[in-house]
């Protein structure tokens, strides 16, 4: 109950820059008479700036547009386009299309959840991995498949999961 569905923190600097950009955007758009009507547009901007909708941004939008936070939260959670969680660096999509499902996609999902200690839809605390399901990726002959960002891994078994995750962890270390 206490955990709010929004956000591991952005870095302070990024956040402040983003909020400033957001305020400027709202100010230049203030000629809009219908503040409630402007909300949709503004939330799109928030998503564009931060890659998700952080709570601080919703607070700013509330104050600037004079729209209650509860209302903003309702809208931000209604539309699939908006995300209240930051996107991970490596987004994992487990295919749950029919073929992959039959070939054991669900077991892959379980294993990834176990390895990363997160649930479907969540992001690891370090922001590295995010976990989502996807429908058919169009390579049923190679099922079950898992896609990480643009890379597709085929004919997977749960035992291969740790290796794949490690590969991205190593990549991350190298870039640092």
């Amino acid at each position, binding site marked *: *109950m206490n955990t709010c*569905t929004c956000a591991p923190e952005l870095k302070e600097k990024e956040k402040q820059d983003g909020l400033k950009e957001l305020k400027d955007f709202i100010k230049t758009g203030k000629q809009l008479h219908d503040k409630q009507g402007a909300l949709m547009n503004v939330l799109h901007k928030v998503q564009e700036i931060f890659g998700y909708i952080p709570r601080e941004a*919703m607070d700013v939008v*509330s104050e600037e547009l*004079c729209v*209650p936070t*509860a209302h903003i939260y*309702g809208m931000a959670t*209604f539309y699939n386009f908006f995300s209240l969680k930051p996107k991970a660096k490596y987004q994992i999509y487990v295919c749950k299309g029919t073929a992959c499902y039959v070939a054991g996609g669900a077991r892959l999902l379980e294993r990834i959840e176990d390895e990363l200690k997160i649930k479907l839809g969540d992001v690891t605390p370090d922001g590295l991995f995010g976990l989502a399901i996807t429908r058919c990726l169009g390579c049923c002959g190679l099922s079950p498949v898992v896609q990480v960002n643009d890379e597709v891994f085929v004919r997977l078994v749960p035992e291969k999961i740790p290796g794949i995750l490690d590969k991205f962890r190593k990549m991350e270390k190298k870039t640092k």
Partner: protein
Amino acid sequence: MEKKMINLIIDGIAVKVSEDSTVMQAADSVGIHIPRLCYHPRLSSVGACRVCVVEVDGAKNFPASCVTAVFEGMKVKTNTPAIREARRDVVELILDNHPKECQICERNNNCELQQLATTLGVEDYFYAGERKQFPIDSSSCSIVRDPDKCILCGKCVRVCSEIQGVNALSISARGYKTNVGPAYNMDMKDSVCINCGQCTLVCPTAALTEKDGIKETFKNLSNPDKVCIVQIAPAVRVAVGEAFGFAPGTDKTYEMVTALRMMGFKVVFDTQFSADLTIIEEGHEFIKRLTTGGKLPMFTSCSPGWIKYLETFHPEFIENVSTCKSPQQMMGALIKTFYAKKVGIDPAKIFSVSIMPCTAKKYECARPEMNSSGFRDVDVVLTTRELAKMIKQAGIKFTELKKGEFDEPLGESTGAAPIFGVTGGVMEAALRTAYEVITKKELPSIDFKDVRGLNGIREAIVDVAGTKVSVAVVNGLANVHKLLTEIKEGKRKYHFVEVMTCPGGCIGGGGQIYPQGDIEAMDKNLYTQRSDGLYDIDEKKKLRKSHENPHITAVYKEFLQKPLGELSHKLLHTHYHKACPKGVPSEVRDTVSIG
């Protein structure tokens, strides 16, 4: 401009209604009751539940009658086999996503969903499947939110926004995850909720209810080491009877006293005594502000929902609010100081309960500064509903009780006190006293009819010894927002403003008995009956001005010394602090009135 009249036929009956009517209103006007769930006459219509569907000739689907406008020549059928089946399906679908625990539910026998299921003839769980599972939020001192019982009608969201202008709640997410709650899914206690409980009055099920105080009360009543003392608020006495079949407005004060003694309360005091005391303190505070150039307008402070609203949304007016505690808290402080000393009880052994028409009082008594006696001044607040429940649980036949008497010395009150329970009453009571204190003359007419009524905002000008005192009375926080905004803009100027959080004042409080039968919360007749009940009590009193209460005079003589004195400041006054607001009240709109 006169509205055009429209002719239509509903179930073969010719109906003539104005052009802005809905099909549901047209049907109501000829005695056809279309079943409904998310509709409320005082709130905007959203057509969310689809229970009120009807057949309209030429329409491709079954439109929801609460949001369908009438048109000339329209032919409507409200009672065909297809329609009955459609409605039943809708209710079955809701039921199958709803806990099947009616017998142990707070709203058992008083639940709109339960009633609908019976009237529509639901006989089986046709669509049984997985149910939504959300945690219960009992973080708030006042209100418990059980989303599993929520049927997403959205009435709470609308009452919070449209009547109270607070916007603590919204509908979030979609599909199976749809949920009603505060912004960011935060706990109620951290949200901008001001604890008024209007949501509990309009909730058709038990998704929003008051926080239980019954268990702790019963526990202390059976503890031989505790002295249980209780006080009863004005508005409770004209509503509690409704739970036992009496007409709204029936005065059940003294039967309630008897019931409370039967339950084991050693001492029964009347919050009306401290209402009189409030008038003395607040009246003197007003006179002081008026004559010494203090901050004006002065706002009343007895409604704790308003206080939290002020601190959250309009902290710029904090200095304008009377520093007087509410009557509940004044009584609480006196019980554990003055009374404890007088009769020689250790205040640590006192368990102080108050019966209130209000859920926000539960929050008020838990505020950290409400401990001027050295202890928590009021231990538990019970709503009118909880009192009725306790009476039933204790096996007391309320309809057959003899009248009891309040205890002295905090049990006597004047006619100025009962009217605290209705919007305009505090103002009237204050004027009766302020007038006589300032002019030192007797009031020519005791009834200030201008400040009475159920309209959202009312104004009056009172001539006090040549000074024209401009007063306003406001109820419902959306109206308060409008009033405060216009005061800031200089459009309105007053000396004294009475603020009540709930529409109608305490008679419409969030802790009052759920309206019985087809009557809805904020019903004009219901609130008029309760309000008439209070004015009736006032009229029947021999003494009708707070400063004439001999027991008040005695308390000052024996204990408090003088109004606004040192001890008064310690025990009867308080302070407010700016909350960290993360909400925005609704934009200014037209005044919302019950009357």
